[in-house]
């Protein structure tokens, strides 16, 4: 009698569970649907559209287009300016990423080891990150002006004759890269500062007792390894940001002189919106996306192997 009473609620619960299972599924889909819609609408949809366009000869403004297969890609890979833009972008990234990470790290270490004015230094170095690149690019344009620019004036005082930074094939890309570092290192610094705060004091103590108490030993055995995860994050983020370099190129050099500072995103913009070759531009976008995805994946895989401890 009592046993029966005990069992009844359990059976009822089981039945109710069966009944609600399908309902729960529906609810689950309902719950993820906003995220799913956004993902499809903002990410997968546009990517699919771009891939589709890259197979057409559509020109911006025209109402008709034809599928032309992989002709756009053929043209693209046969185009020396594309290769120039690709190598320039890679060179730019290869300068900006290590530059940003190193400068950010060094400044963070200096700020954290020097007492007083910490807040001020942190804010001052973070300012470039907050500013608008296209506006700052104009400031840099005047600074790098061959005759009245601050940079060449300063060099002149030291007896060095400067060059026309942005109009010289040898220096245009380098100048842009330096501007890129200037703009990005504050962000890296802030991340490193917070990473430094999380390094346990006991590790420094252990290192001191173990005899690793020089500046370099402390860096090597405690600080840098403990900053590993932060560094990975900074590298990936900086790499992504520098692949996207566009504003400074558009404002300062338009890819010139003689394509010396042409980069992928600027090439893409020029083809699509200056020359209105949407199909060709879309093909370029597809290549750009592929490169980004590939790089992110290898980067994450390589770095992750070395920085995850627990």
């Amino acid at each position, binding site marked *: 009698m009592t046993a029966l009473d005990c069992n009844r609620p359990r059976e009822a619960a089981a039945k109710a569970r069966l009944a609600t299972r399908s309902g729960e599924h529906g609810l689950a889909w309902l719950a993820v649907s906003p995220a799913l819609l956004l993902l499809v609408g903002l990410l997968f949809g546009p990517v699919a559209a771009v891939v589709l366009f890259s197979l057409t000869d559509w020109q911006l403004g025209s109402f008709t287009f034809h599928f032309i297969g992989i002709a756009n890609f053929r043209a693209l890979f046969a185009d020396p300016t594309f290769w120039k833009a690709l190598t320039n972008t890679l060179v730019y990234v290869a300068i900006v990423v290590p530059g940003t990470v190193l400068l950010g790290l060094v400044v963070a270490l200096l700020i954290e080891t020097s007492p007083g004015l910490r807040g001020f230094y942190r804010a001052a170095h973070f300012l470039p990150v907050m500013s608008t690149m296209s506006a700052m690019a104009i400031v840099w344009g005047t600074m790098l002006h061959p005759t009245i620019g601050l940079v060449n004036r300063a060099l002149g005082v030291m007896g060095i004759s400067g060059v026309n930074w942005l109009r010289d094939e040898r220096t245009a890309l380098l100048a842009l890269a330096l501007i890129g570092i200037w703009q990005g290192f504050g962000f890296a610094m802030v991340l490193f500062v917070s990473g430094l705060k999380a390094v346990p004091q006991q590790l420094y103590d252990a290192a001191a007792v173990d005899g690793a108490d020089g500046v370099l030993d402390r860096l090597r055995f405690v600080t840098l*390894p403990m900053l590993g995860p932060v560094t990975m994050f900074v590298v990936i983020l900086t790499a992504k940001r520098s692949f996207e370099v566009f504003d400074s190129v558009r404002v300062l050099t338009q890819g010139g002189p003689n394509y010396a500072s042409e980069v992928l995103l600027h090439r893409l913009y020029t083809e699509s919106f200056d020359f209105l070759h949407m199909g060709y531009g879309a093909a370029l976008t597809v290549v750009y996306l592929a490169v980004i995805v590939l790089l992110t994946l290898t980067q994450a895989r390589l770095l992750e192997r070395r920085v995850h401890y627990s």
Partner: protein
Amino acid sequence: MAEIELRDIEKSYGETAIVKGVSLSIRDGEFLTLVGPSGCGKSTLLRIIAGLEAQNSGEVLVAGRCVDDKRPKERDVAMVFQSYALYPHLSVFDNLALPLRTRRLSFAQRLPLVGRALPGRGDVEKAIRAEIEQAASMLDIAHLLRRKPGQLSGGQRQRVALGRAMVRHPAVFLMDEPLSNLDAKLRVQMRAEIIALHRRLGVTFVYVTHDQAEAMTMSDRVAVMMDGELLQVDRPERLYRDPEDLRVAEMIGSPKINVVSRAHWVSLGASLPAGIHRNTAHLAFRPEAVGIVASGDGRLNGVVASVENLGSDIFLNVTLADGQGTVVVRTHPDASRSEAGRSVGLQIDPACLLQFDGAGMRQREVERVEAAA
């Protein structure tokens, strides 16, 4: 081999004095435990001995020589930290090797790639490997040498930390609550291992804990610290039976010692035992010094409030007759059973009665004359 001497060590952070004039001699090969409540300055004192913190005044001597101007690595001390402080990116082997490498290899020789090519490194590395393997087998971690600390259990990490302290044969081991991150069972096991390690190495151990049971079971001598001062430094059994200070009496022993103030005692209508000093303000007695007698027969009377049966012992919490304050009594399991709610009398062994004055200082020799008065 080294004895440690602390002379009038003072340390303050800003305005707050943390260590207030501590003097202490630790004998060569001794296992000394610093015990005290949280925040009393134990870690600070240990860090001063290690050289990780500079004292404001006073001297630290190791093996008779003043080490105040020596860096931690030059003091011949090793330290084991509460949260192990292993290098998470290095394998267990490299963790153990680090203190040896920093001492025996030059900076250039220690560089990752270049160092390997430099002359002299190979032989040193071979010697290091042999020593580490020996230490590892002693601590039963030889099979873990290739792992990273993140892949070890808490007890294994603690053994690695011990190993890292051990490999370079320091004269002094400093340990700051090394067992507090372990679960109760493992803690008891590691306790025994550390005692065995001390016996085998025969060097000086300074061990910090806030667990009085750890202090009592492991040490040759215990230094009880409170608010930056040493209250008493003595062998564990003397601290328990012969405390100099009421705070020591209250800290050592579980369950806590019973304390009844003189005024309370008198207000209960109980006669004071013979031989009470005129300055005595507190009467203290351990749970095992109390016998249960029929209600009304003892000096103090009360009602059993609760019974805690631990198997080997039974502890009775007895509420005193006026309802103010309880006394803990230890009885044997085979003694006649007491249930909660029963009225009992308490018979206190006068030989085990400890007297303290108003400031908590122990009152010893008692004049019979005065007691009779």
